[in-house]
């Protein structure tokens, strides 16, 4: 890595396929995660991404156990089990949300605890900590290949298609579930499909930023965009721009300084969030001062 970084980043993109895959994968996830994250935030389910990512880790650990310890190499990549695991986690969350109608958030810590416990168990059974586990916890964007880019392209295209086709229903269910029910939107089916999509996106994001940082990819760019967005579409657009800046910046820094990619992406996201908050506060204070002067001048 240190040797590669002697080549300037822009040149390296053309020279090394791994860097092109990393940037392509990052850009795709950087587009789709805030898109989904916006609806997650409106529905006040920010914690669900974290829960599903922890439950995915259980799938990853079971996958590593099956592949490394039992020798079931036909599974290919533990990522497939992470996807299945996230979908199962999503099902359990929906069932528990049905049981605890007035305390729906209870479902999250239950599923997260189960996921974390299973992860610890199977990590131990598969021989303890390894570089694979480290990569899944904190991301390994620079190691992705053509297969991964292919999978996320298909999933992202599907997600985008769903959002475009069901845009009205998504907005109605997210902003006003009761009204959506009145005008005939089938809420249960809608919730089920959206949780399923979320599970897919979360499990695929693990490669980009890792289990521990997945929710940040989905939530932080939207949190920053909410501060400056003038409308719903404008807010989503800004969040995608922030997300893409952090992905490109994160890969760049990671390449130049040999830092973990997931961490650099998330830290740039956090930096943007604080910067936006600071700049907005500055302008609000400036406007208040101008108004005060205008009133005093009269």
């Amino acid at each position, binding site marked *: 890595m240190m040797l590669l970084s002697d080549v300037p980043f822009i040149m390296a993109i053309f020279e090394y396929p791994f860097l092109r895959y990393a940037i392509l994968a990052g850009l795709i996830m950087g587009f789709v995660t805030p898109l989904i994250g*916006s609806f997650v*935030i*409106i*529905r*006040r389910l920010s914690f669900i991404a974290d829960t599903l990512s922890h439950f995915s880790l259980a799938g990853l650990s079971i996958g590593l156990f099956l592949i490394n310890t039992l020798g079931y190499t036909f599974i290919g990549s533990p990522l497939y089990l992470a996807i299945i695991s996230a979908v199962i986690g999503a099902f359990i969350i929906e069932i528990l949300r049905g049981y605890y109608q007035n305390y729906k958030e209870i479902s999250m810590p239950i599923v997260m605890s189960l996921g974390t416990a299973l992860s610890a168990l199977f990590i131990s059974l598969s021989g303890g900590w390894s570089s694979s586990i480290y990569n899944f916890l904190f991301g390994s964007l620079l190691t992705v290949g053509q297969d991964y880019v292919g999978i996320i392209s298909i999933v992202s295209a599907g997600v985008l298609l769903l959002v475009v086709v069901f*845009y*009205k229903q998504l*907005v*109605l269910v*997210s*902003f*006003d*579930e*009761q*009204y959506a*029910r*009145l*005008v*005939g939107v089938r809420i249960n089916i809608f919730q089920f499909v959206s949780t399923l999509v979320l599970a897919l996106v979360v499990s695929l994001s693990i490669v980009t930023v890792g289990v521990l940082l997945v929710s940040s990819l989905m939530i932080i760019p939207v949190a920053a965009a*909410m501060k400056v*967005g*003038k*409308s*719903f*579409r*404008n*807010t989503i657009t800004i969040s995608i721009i922030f997300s893409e800046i952090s992905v490109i910046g994160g890969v760049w820094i990671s390449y130049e300084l040999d830092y973990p990619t997931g961490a650099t992406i998330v830290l740039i996201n956090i930096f943007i969030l604080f910067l936006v908050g600071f700049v907005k506060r500055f302008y609000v204070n400036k406007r208040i001062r101008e108004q005060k002067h205008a009133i005093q001048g009269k």
Partner: protein
Amino acid sequence: MITVRVHVNNLIFGYDYRTVLKDISFKLNSGDFLVVIGNNGSGKSTLVKCILGLNKVAPGSIVLDDVDITTFKTFINIGYVPQKFDDFNYEFPITVNEILSASNISKISDDKRLELLDKIGILELQNENINNLSGGQLQRVFIVRSLMNKPKMLILDEPTVGVDQKNVEAFYKTVNELNKEGITIILITHNINESNANYTHVLSLYNGEGVFKEVVREEEE
């Protein structure tokens, strides 16, 4: 032609072991204006939820335009204006136009939407972010939304809570005009004296029991 729009027949509804509505019956024709009054917990909002199909009705029945509501897949013909902070998520940026576009199930034209915004007096707010609106302005947005799907009936659940007096008067002026156009209105309120509504019927709820009365007004000179 006057048709029976709503027929609530021997409606009983309860949560777990507590009966909230006890044998409620009334009939409203097209163009009627019902005010439902009662203290907190008297069953006003429960009644609304029953009419809107959000509470499953049994025993008893609710028939709208000769069709039992249990067979309804959508309540698009009923415009519903909820209490201000009922369910709507106000904090995420979204403009008036964006929320109206998403609610436009009947696919009315942009011109018709602008006409409705103008009629309700909020045309200039169409590109405003909803979290910049006052309580009165928000209620008007909800009225426009409820009118977009050409409702035959409008249900207003305590629509003026937290709205200043000037806007309350403007609000009821609008509601009276809509009623004159033939839309049946059901207004839920805890204080009948607050409203300048030209109601034709009153349903008083007390501990789940209802007294339904027609209001006879003296002919204006």
